[in-house]
């Protein structure tokens, strides 16, 4: 079991000489008993994300898309490390979990499907064996400790999500008010044990929608409001009038002089 007196640190070191592009990474703290943890991105373009406590996650942060080395660090001590590649335009969740010793798992998060609600289940509760996840009483998947299910497309709405032993059918953990939103993808993480209450943490992975704003104007209001045109006409009239007046007065002066 981890001793995390001074906090955890995820260290991500970037291999040099690779092209920089953007991926998005967030960190979920699922190490039972661990105090505030941080996701640190070392090397070129490196950054440190906000610290989070057990059961909490950071928001997504943009990181360079390249081959990286991730390290789980408590204070100055590295507890675990892993290498992975972050691809441009892809979102990842890095889970700090514990199965006897610290472990890191990197999940590639999915995009959303319009009008449907996508749901994935992740088992990160080390003291529970394989569990059967049910959504609204319907069996979704049997998930082994430390593993993730595939995304499934569900009808949006409010559900009761449960995890129980596959044979008994009894729910060990329940989230009674899981709201699956149309056009989003989400992951339900089963976390806890080691003195921490076992529970679900649900994070939104993506929302579906066009990138560009709608073109909902045809210019009718702009057509009726053209002060520059009015002013231009006024200026031309004024200029013409002044020219006429000037030529008349010049003519009058010439006559008076003659």
């Amino acid at each position, binding site marked *: 079991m981890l001793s995390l007196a001074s906090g955890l640190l995820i260290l991500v070191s970037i291999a040099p000489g690779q092209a920089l592009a953007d991926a998005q990474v967030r960190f979920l703290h699922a190490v039972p008993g661990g105090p505030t943890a941080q996701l640190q991105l070392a090397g070129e373009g490196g950054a440190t994300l906000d610290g989070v406590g057990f059961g909490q996650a950071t928001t997504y942060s943009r990181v360079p898309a390249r081959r990286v080395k991730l390290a789980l660090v408590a204070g100055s001590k590295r507890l675990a490390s892993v290498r992975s590649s972050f691809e441009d335009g892809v979102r990842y969740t890095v889970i700090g979990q514990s199965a006897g010793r610290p472990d890191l798992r990197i999940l590639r998060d999915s995009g*959303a499907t*319009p*009008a449907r609600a996508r749901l994935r289940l992740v088992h990160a509760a080390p003291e529970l064996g394989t569990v059967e996840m049910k959504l*609204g009483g319907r069996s979704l998947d049997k998930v082994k400790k430390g593993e993730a299910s595939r995304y499934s497309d569900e*009808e*949006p*709405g*409010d*559900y009761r999500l449960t995890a129980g032993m596959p044979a008994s059918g009894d729910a060990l953990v329940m989230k009674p*008010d899981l*709201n699956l*939103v*149309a*056009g*989003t993808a*989400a992951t339900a993480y089963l976390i806890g044990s080691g003195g921490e209450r076992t529970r679900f943490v649900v994070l*939104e992975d993506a*929302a*579906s*929608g*066009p*990138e*560009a*704003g*709608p*073109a*909902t*104007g*045809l*210019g*009718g*209001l*702009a*057509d*009726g*409001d*053209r*002060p*520059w045109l*009015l*002013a*231009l006409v*006024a*200026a031309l009239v*004024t*200029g013409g*009038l*002044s*020219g006429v*007046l*000037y030529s*008349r*007065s*010049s003519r*009058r*002066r010439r006559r008076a002089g003659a």
Partner: protein
Amino acid sequence: MPAPDRGSRLALTLAALVPALAAGAAVLSLGSGGGEGNAAGSAGAADQLARAADRGKGAIDPAATTRALAPVIAEPGRAGIEASPLESLDGGIRPAPPQRIAIPAAGLDAVVEPVSSRGGAIKVPDVGRAGWYDGGPRPGEIGRALIIGHLDRRKGPGLFARVPSLLPGTDIDLTDRRGEVRRFKVVGTTQTPRDRFPTQYVYGAADAPVLVLVTCGGPFRPGRGYRDNVLLYARLAERTTPRGRAPRVVLYRGGP
């Protein structure tokens, strides 16, 4: 040099007016178009409004809106009890897709048709209709339901011409295909460049049923359309069944 006579003085005065009028025209031209102003930093305002619409609390950017609304939830038999606005109002039954939108304060009552995305943007509805983005939540579901409408036609105002000027607290009624009416209260509006549409604050999950109305704003550029979008955020206040029974009423009071 002889002093200019009266006619020459008048002519010179008028001539001096020409550049002054031209300058005035430029100023007027820049300042026209209905709140086109500076849309920079509007993603932050959209973030604040989205949060305020979600939770009914939190700081509101004075530039984006004038006032936040704090919810006080009252139910038959539970009057005066404050409850979390995070509770689902519809249980496990999904609201039907929207059919009509009415904003009495703006004299608006129109059909809502479902619209989807096409070519990286939301397909725009007919000029006289509003469009509900059918890839997202339905109005009344937890999450952000998106409805778009025209600011103007080729000549004259469009369906959503008065949306940018709606004040916080204004009622917006959405009737669904089952005849249920959901009343939303305006939280505030903000303006954002159309080519930097703040998708993270427009689509997706929320803690409560939120309505986002979208129309155009800013200067009109011939051939390219309006530069900006105006986003209006509202949150659910009341639901009425077809029989007129109000199973749950959420009243709003002025916030901090």
